[in-house]
C-alpha cells in the first residue's frame, strides 16, 4: 500500500475553498477525532469478532456485516494506546478502503458535524508523530479540537509496524 496508489483521501481533498465538510466525530480517550462522512458505511455497537491468529496487533479480528467479511481494527492500538478492557462498551465505524470494509473500533461515536475550512489547521509541529501519521490536520471546534483521521494512512499497517 504505497502512498501514491491511494485513492483521493481527506488529505488531498482538504485544501479547498470555504466549503463545509461533514465528519463523523468519534472519541478515543478524551480526544475527539473525525472521519469524513462519505467514507462511513455503518456505525455498529459491540460485535462478535473472530480473532485472527498471527495478524498484526492492530487487527482485532473479523466480523460478519450482512454477509460481508469486515476486518476490525483497534484504533487505540493503531494510535499506540492500550486497548480498553475486554468488557468495555465500544463502538465501531465501518469504512470502505480500496473495495474492502474495515471496522474501526473506537471508544464512542458522536454525531455528524459540518465543519468549515476556515476552522482547519495543519498539525502544530509539536504533535506526536503517531497522531501526525494517521491524520491530516485539526479543526477548531467551539469546545474542543477535532483531529481528522486519514483512513488510508490509518489502515496502512505496514507503516505502523515500521514506526
Amino acid at each position: 500500500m504505497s502512498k501514491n496508489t491511494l485513492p483521493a483521501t481527506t488529505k488531498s481533498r482538504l485544501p479547498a475553498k470555504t466549503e463545509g465538510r461533514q465528519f463523523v466525530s468519534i472519541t478515543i480517550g478524551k480526544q475527539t477525532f473525525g472521519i469524513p462522512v462519505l467514507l462511513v458505511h455503518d456505525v455498529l455497537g459491540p460485535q462478535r469478532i473472530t480473532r485472527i491468529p498471527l495478524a498484526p496487533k492492530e487487527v482485532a479480528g473479523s466480523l460478519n456485516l450482512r454477509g460481508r467479511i469486515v476486518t476490525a481494527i483497534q484504533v487505540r492500538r493503531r494510535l499506540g494506546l492500550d486497548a480498553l478492557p475486554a468488557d468495555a462498551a465500544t463502538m465501531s465505524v465501518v469504512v470502505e478502503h480500496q473495495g474492502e470494509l474495515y471496522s474501526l473500533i473506537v471508544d464512542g461515536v458522536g454525531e455528524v458535524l459540518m465543519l468549515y475550512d476556515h476552522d482547519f489547521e495543519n498539525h502544530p509541529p509539536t504533535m506526536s508523530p503517531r497522531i501526525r501519521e494517521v491524520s491530516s490536520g485539526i479543526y477548531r471546534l467551539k469546545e474542543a479540537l477535532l483531529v481528522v483521521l486519514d483512513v488510508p494512512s490509518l489502515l496502512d499497517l505496514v507503516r505502523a509496524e515500521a514506526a
Partner: protein
Amino acid sequence: MDELLSEFLTETTENLSQLDVEIVHLEQNPNDQALLSNIFRLVHTIKGTCGFLGLPRLESVAHASENVLGKIRDGELVVTPTGISLILESLDCIKGLLATLEATEAEPEGSDGDLIARLNALAEGAEGADPAEAVSFGSEPEPEPEIDDTPPPGSEVIGTRPGEVPLDELDRIFNETSVDDFDTPEAAPTPPAAPAPAPAPAVQSTPAAAASKAVAVASEASDDSAPRESQVANQTIRVNVDQLENLMTMVSELVLTRNQLLQIARREKDSEFTVPLQRLSQVTSELQEGVMKTRMQPIGNAWSKLPRIVRDLAHELGKKIDLVMLGADTELDRQVLELIKDPLTHMVRNSADHGVETPDVRMAVGKSEHGKITLNAYHEGGHILIEISDDGRGLDPAKIKAKAIANGLVSELEAEALTEQQIHHFIFRAGFSTAAAVTSVSGRGVGMDVVRTNIEKIGGTIELQSKLGRGSRFIIKIPLTLAIVSALIVEACGERFAIPQLSVIELVRASADSEHRIEEVQGTPVLRLRNRLLPLVSLERLLNLERTQGDEPASKQTFIVVAQVGTYTFGILVDRVFDTEEIVVKPVAPILRHIAMFSGNTILGDGSVIMILDPNGIAQATGELSVTDPNAADEAADHRSIGMSTVSLLVFRGGSDATPKAVPLSLVARLEEIDLSLVEYSEGRPLIQYRGQLMPLIPMDSRAELKREGRQPVLVFTDDSRSMGLVVDEIVDIVEDRINVEVRPDSPALMGSAVIAGKATDVIDAGYYLTQAFGDWFDHNNEETLSVTRGRRLLVVDDSAFFRNLLTPLLSVAGYEVTAVAGGEQAMALCESGDTFDVIISDIEMPGMDGFQLAEAVRSDSRWADVPIVALSSRTTAEDLERGRQVGFTDYVAKLDRDALLETLAQTVGA
C-alpha cells in the same frame, strides 16, 4: 453433437447474419473501406475455421468469395449489384451447407464448382456471370439441390433461386447424388415417408438416428418458405463469463444464507417456518446446481486435441497407439477445465512417448502390437476422477532409483529403504525424466513436476500406480468447482477454523488410554498410526493461540486431523471437531494476506466469520518446505543448490580471464575504490593505508603487477582488526541467485563454476585469498584456541555441496580435522560404523533426515549422545532456536557467518 462443431455453427451463423447486413450496406456504400475490411475479415474467419475443421466444401466456397472481396477491398474490382448478388449467393450456399452440417454433422458431398467458377470469373474481372448459369450445375452431382418453391424449400436450400430448377431435374440430381455419393443402405433414392413435403436428401443419406432428427428439423422448417435459421444458433446465447461468475457468487451467498436459516430452524423445533424453509432450501439447491451447470463443460473439450496429438506422436515414434476416451461427457467447472487441459495433454504425451513401447518390443513381450492409452473420467463423491492409463512398459523402479541417486535426490543408502511407491514419486520431481533420450516429444525434464504443481494448485491430487512391464495409471482427483468447497470445522483453544475437506484424509481421536496415544520425541509430538510415525502439528503452537482459563481440554483428549499435501502426510492437533460445511472461500483482507496459514475466510451457517486453514501453508511452515514425502524432501531443481533459499552474490570481473567471478556477498565486509598511486610496497607485496592500518592487497591475477596509477575497486574482507583487499577489475552486480556449483577442485582459488544470472561464473574461494594475504588469517585471533582446535575431529553435515566446499577448507585452516557428509543418514551411518567426532555442525534443511531429526537421532544414540551439535542454518526464527534447543542442538549459527561459526566451534570444543 461435437462440441467444436456446435461452437463453429453458432459462431458462423452469427457471422453470416452479420455479413448479410453488412454486404447490403456495402452495396449502398461501395466505398466504405472499414465495412469492406470487416466483411473480408468475417469471410476470412469462416474460411479459416472451415479449413481447421476439415470442411473442404465450405472452405472452397468461402475462399472463392474471399477472393472476390479481397479484390474489391484492394480496389481491383468495383462493387456492382451483380457482384454483391453473387457474394450473397455464396453466403446462402454456405448457409445451406451449414444447415446440412447441423442436421447430419457432416458436410454434404458434392461440389460447388459452378458457383466457385462464377466467383472466380468475377475475381478475374469478368462481370457477374449470367444468373441463368446457376441452373446449369446439373452436370455436377449436387446433394443440395435447389428445391421448387412449391413445395416450400426445406432447410437444405442453397443457391436460393427458387423456381429455377425444374422438378424433374431436381429428381434426377436427387437420385444421382444419393446413389453416386453415398453407399449407405439407408440412402434409398426414393423420398422417405416423412411428413415433410420436400425431405432433404441428407435425410436419406444418414443413418436412421440422424435421419429422424433431420426429418423433424426439416418438417419444422418446411412450413416456412424462408431459409430456416440455424437451430443450434437459436438454442444458445452467449453470456459474458463475468456475468456467470457474478451469478455464481450471488448464488453462493444465497446458499450461505439458506444454511444460516436452516441452522436457526434446527434450534427451534416445530416452527411455522419449517415447511417454507424446506422449500426454500430445495429451490436454492436447484438454483445452485443450475448455475453451476452453466459453468460446466464436458471434459471432452479438454480432450479434443488429444487424438490428433497421439496420432502424430505414434507416427513420429513408429508406434501403434489406440487412444480410448471414456466419460468424455463428464462435466466439470469451466475454470477447472482450463487448468487441467495442459497437464492432461502433457500426461498423454508422456504415456505415448515413455509408456507405450514400439510394436516390435510389444510383440516380443507378448503384447498386442497396438498400445492402448485410456482416458477415463467420472464423478466420485464431489470430485472428478480422471485416469490416464497405458498398457506400456510401466515405470522401472530400478531405473528411477538409479536416476534419483545420480541426480543426488537420495543417497544409495536412503534409496534402499524406499518403497516402490516412494520411488515412483520421484518422477514428480523437477528435472526428472526416465526417457533415456531426449526426444522432441518429451524427456526434456520439464514435466511431471509441473503437472503435479498445476493440479495441486486447484486443490487436486495426483496418484500413480505402475507395474513394470504392465503399464502405468495416473489418477487425478480434482474438485468439481472451486467456488464452493466442503470444509471440516475444527476448534483449537476456543477458536474455530475450517480445513478444506479435500486435504483431510482421516480423523483420529487420541487420548492417553486409547490405542492412539500422542508421544513426544524431544518435545515434538508424533503419533504412531498404522506402524508409521505421523508428524503432528499443534495449531495452538503454530498460530500462537492462547488458552483461556477453563478452556483446558476437558478430557485429555485431542483429535488429529490427518491431512495430506502432495505426498506429505501430517496430523493437525485440534481440540474438537464439528461438522463439515459447504463454504464459499473468500479472500482475506489485503492487510492479512501475508499470513500463509490461511487460504481465505468465510461466513459459517451461524453467521460467524471463520478462517480457512491452508494445509499447504501449514506444511511449509512446519518445515516440510517442499511438501513432498518426508523421506525424500524435494530439493527442487538441483540437490547442490543451497536449500530453497537464494544467496546474495557479488559478481565482479578480474583475474586473467574474462569470466565473471562471484563471491557470497556476506563474506565481503566492504567495497572500496582505491587510488593506485597510494599503494605502497613492503617486500614486494602491495599494501595500502586503510582506516589507519596497513591492509595487504591481493590482485585477482597473482601473476599480474598492480598498475601504478588510476583507481581500482577492491573487495575488503575483514576479520576483527585485520583487513585484506582483493583487487578486482570491475564490480558488475549483486545478484540474488541460487548457486549450483560444479566443483572443480584443480584450481585452489576457485570453489568452482556456476551459472549465475544466466552466465557461467567462477565462484572464488575467499579463504584462498585470505591465506594469501595472511598465512595465519584464520588462526591469528585465536592463537590460544588453535591449540584447542588443532586435531579436533569435526563432522560437517550439509546437503549443499557448495557449503561443504566452503566450510571444509575454512575449518581445516582453523585446525580442525574435517569430515563432510551430505545428509543426516550418512552422518548416522558414520556413527554406526564407530567413527567419533568432537563436534558436529549440521544444516537444518536437508532432504531426508533433516537437522532436527539428526540431532534427535544423535541424542538418542548412546555413542554420540555427548557430542556437541551446532546447527547451521539460514533459518533463525525464535521458534527454530527453541526447537533446536529442544532437540538437543548445543548452539545455533547463522549460515555464512564465518566468524560466529569459528568462535562458536572454538567455544564448544573448548568447553
